[in-house]
């Protein structure tokens, strides 16, 4: 497989792994050593191009690599040992898979001749990871390593991105066995040729439909973020004055503070976004997949709309919602071509119809408008997020865990740039936030990196405070502490007559002492008036340090709006006492 040149350098399998990563331009590898990967770790030790970040649990390594990919669009790299090292990485691989995040995961494996014999720390990682990867492969011959690593990056980063696992038996990396090294420039596979450009005929058809619309909505998802098409999306929306809604994964694709932004849609979407979707006559869906957390009841979804669906993955088209005008291709060139076609036509949407539509949307805006109780003596989580948004000017990287705090962050942080909102949308992985923030901070040391979390989620990977100390990662932890697993409690309030089955967090640690024990700064905030000074200290005075803000919030707060199960996209609870 590798083309052999006479003058090729002779390297061991272990050295080839590291050299290939260096040739791929990888700066950081996130991992944890163990028996099966010791040869590779020794090769890492003997060079200085590729740097290794030692986490405290393999799950954190995967989330760090994943967050790097979300922030940059490039695949993150993980290195773990066989058996428990590999299985600990599984949650992180599944997290990346569900959100289509490029990642290359190198897992150690027992020696080839021991495979299948239940050897020490053996597990069938190819079998375990198969349903949660874009692809996986194993090394059969050491000389194939450069090719397989190039192939792993190619598959992970092209088409619809995703994680790729490369399983490396220990005997493939023996230091004394050397082979000629050559890193391929490109990979061509007869069985995998992802589409790039969209079909021009379909694009023309889509543009005609769009220009004829009276009540259009532009609905964009994570594909626009990972596809690097935020600029094109914004230009198209502004050129045609289209209302824009983003999915949870798509936040930041369109500036959150712009008047054309009508908020997130879906389960905890804004009133105006969900209403606009339901009443639209045309939906331009870009890099979004009509997920069940968006559509609510698919049978009642957007009854009057012509649906244009742009996606790189043909399997996403008409999977849950039928697309009238499908366009398969990378969103960036497709949007570019759409924009060019629109400009060429020198035509815009019917301005009086569009004006009426905007009037309607603004009326909806006034109905709920993200209101919450601002008179309470207790700290409200919404207020905390708004203040964080303010002090960071909507430009921080916000890495969230999973639960109520995630929804509050999505609703109240004003994301003005793409790739800044980093959360586990598809899998909903608690414990994602802190390692994700670490992965971003390591690669963007000058940027404000915030981990929005709760006392439940943060404890799922709290050991990483130690990694933060080791690498000087000054992330800001906003722990929205309400003493409950808030989202579970909300559902129990709404559907189980407030029977809080295991959703109360008893015996919480003193987070301030805990932060201090790990060598960081902890600040407790229990009253509204303490918030500003605490944020000031964390984000300005202690800019470069990790600050753990343990913020005690109203334990009774719910996330609203909230779609009513089984209803249409626009059927929502608006507060504890109001519904549509």
């Amino acid at each position, binding site marked *: 497989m590798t083309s052999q040149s006479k003058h090729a350098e002779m390297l061991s399998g272990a050295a080839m792994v590291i050299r290939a990563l260096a040739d791929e331009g990888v700066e950081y590898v996130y991992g944890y050593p163990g028996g099966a990967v010791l040869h590779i770790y020794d090769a890492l030790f003997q060079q200085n191009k590729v740097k290794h970040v030692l986490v405290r649990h393999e799950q954190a390594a995967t989330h760090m690599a994943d967050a790097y990919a979300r922030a940059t669009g490039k695949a993150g790299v993980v290195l773990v040992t066989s058996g428990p090292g590999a299985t600990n990485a599984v949650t992180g691989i599944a997290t990346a898979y569900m959100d289509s995040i490029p990642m290359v995961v190198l897992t150690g494996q027992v020696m080839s001749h021991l495979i299948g014999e239940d050897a020490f720390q053996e597990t069938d990682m190819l079998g375990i990871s*198969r349903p949660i990867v874009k692809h996986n492969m194993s090394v059969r011959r050491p000389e194939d390593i450069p090719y397989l690593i190039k192939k792993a990056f190619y598959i992970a980063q092209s088409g*619809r991105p995703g994680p790729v696992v490369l399983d490396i038996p220990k005997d493939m990396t023996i230091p004394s066995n050397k082979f000629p090294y050559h890193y391929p420039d490109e990979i061509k596979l007869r*069985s995998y040729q992802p589409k790039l450009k969209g079909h021009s005929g379909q694009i023309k058809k889509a543009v005609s439909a769009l220009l004829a619309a009276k009540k259009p909505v532009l609905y964009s998802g994570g594909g626009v973020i990972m596809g690097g098409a935020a600029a094109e999306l914004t230009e198209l929306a502004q050129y045609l004055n289209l209302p824009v809604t983003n999915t949870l994964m798509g936040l930041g694709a369109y500036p959150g503070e712009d008047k054309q932004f009508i908020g997130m849609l879906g389960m905890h979407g804004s009133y105006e976004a969900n209403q606009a979707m339901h009443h639209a006559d045309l939906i331009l869906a870009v890099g979004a997949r009509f997920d069940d957390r968006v559509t609510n009841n698919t049978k009642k979804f957007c009854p009057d709309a012509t649906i244009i669906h742009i996606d790189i*993955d043909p399997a996403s088209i*008409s*999977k849950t919602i039928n697309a009238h005008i499908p366009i398969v291709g990378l969103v960036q060139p497709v949007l570019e071509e759409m924009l060019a076609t629109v400009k060429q036509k020198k035509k815009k949407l019917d301005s009086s119809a569009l004006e009426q539509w905007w009037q309607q949307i603004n009326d909806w805006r006034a109905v709920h408008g993200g209101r919450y109780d601002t008179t309470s003596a207790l700290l409200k989580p919404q207020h905390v997020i708004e203040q964080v948004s303010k002090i960071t000017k909507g430009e921080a990287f916000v890495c969230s865990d999973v639960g109520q705090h995630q929804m509050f962050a999505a609703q109240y942080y004003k994301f003005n740039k793409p790739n800044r909102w980093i959360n586990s949308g598809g899998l909903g992985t608690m414990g994602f936030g802190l390692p994700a923030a670490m992965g971003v901070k390591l690669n963007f040391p000058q940027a404000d990196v915030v981990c929005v979390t709760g006392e439940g989620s943060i404890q799922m990977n709290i050991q990483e405070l130690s990694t933060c100390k080791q690498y000087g990662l000054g992330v800001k932890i906003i722990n929205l502490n309400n003493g409950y697993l808030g989202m579970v409690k909300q559902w129990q309030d709404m559907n189980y007559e407030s029977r809080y089955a295991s959703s109360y967090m008893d015996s919480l640690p003193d987070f301030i002492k805990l932060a201090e024990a790990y060598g960081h700064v902890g600040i407790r905030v229990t009253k509204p008036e303490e918030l500003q000074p605490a944020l000031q200290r964390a984000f300005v005075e202690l800019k470069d340090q990790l600050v753990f803000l343990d913020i005690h919030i109203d334990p009774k707060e719910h996330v609203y709006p909230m779609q009513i199960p089984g209803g249409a996209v626009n059927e929502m609870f608006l507060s504890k006492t109001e519904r549509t």
Partner: protein
Amino acid sequence: MRHIISVLLENESGALARLVGLFAQRGYNIDSLTVAPTEDPTLSRLTLVTHGNDQVIEQITKQLHKLIEVVKLTDLSEAAHIERELMLVKVKAVGEQRDEVKRSADIFRGQIVDVSATTYTVQLVGTSDKLDAFIQALSGTQILEVVRSGVSGISRGEKTLAL
């Protein structure tokens, strides 16, 4: 509706497991599955019989396409095609039954490929319907064992599924 999907697959370890896993993972049905290398040893040809409504079949073909090792595929049942399945049936054959089984096998153009003092083994090739009909025709006979290969298929005329 019943569909016969024919797939050209890279003949690599794990490729078949990935394909079968996809069906389990996404809750699609597999009625039968046959697979073997082609004249090009780097490629396997796989024939899969499944059923589902148009939307499900569309998803199945799209999801199959997404597998990195799937080179090409076609839904044979969308056009004229030939399908064959092989069956071996071992039946009790004593007394009058011996002649009866022989006659039924002849009628269905089956062959008796193994004989013992008390049994016959009949080999039959045809469409799945024909094999079903033969089993029906044996209703008066004690069937000891049935082995079916699953369907293999190919398009009629000049249409091919090849590189």
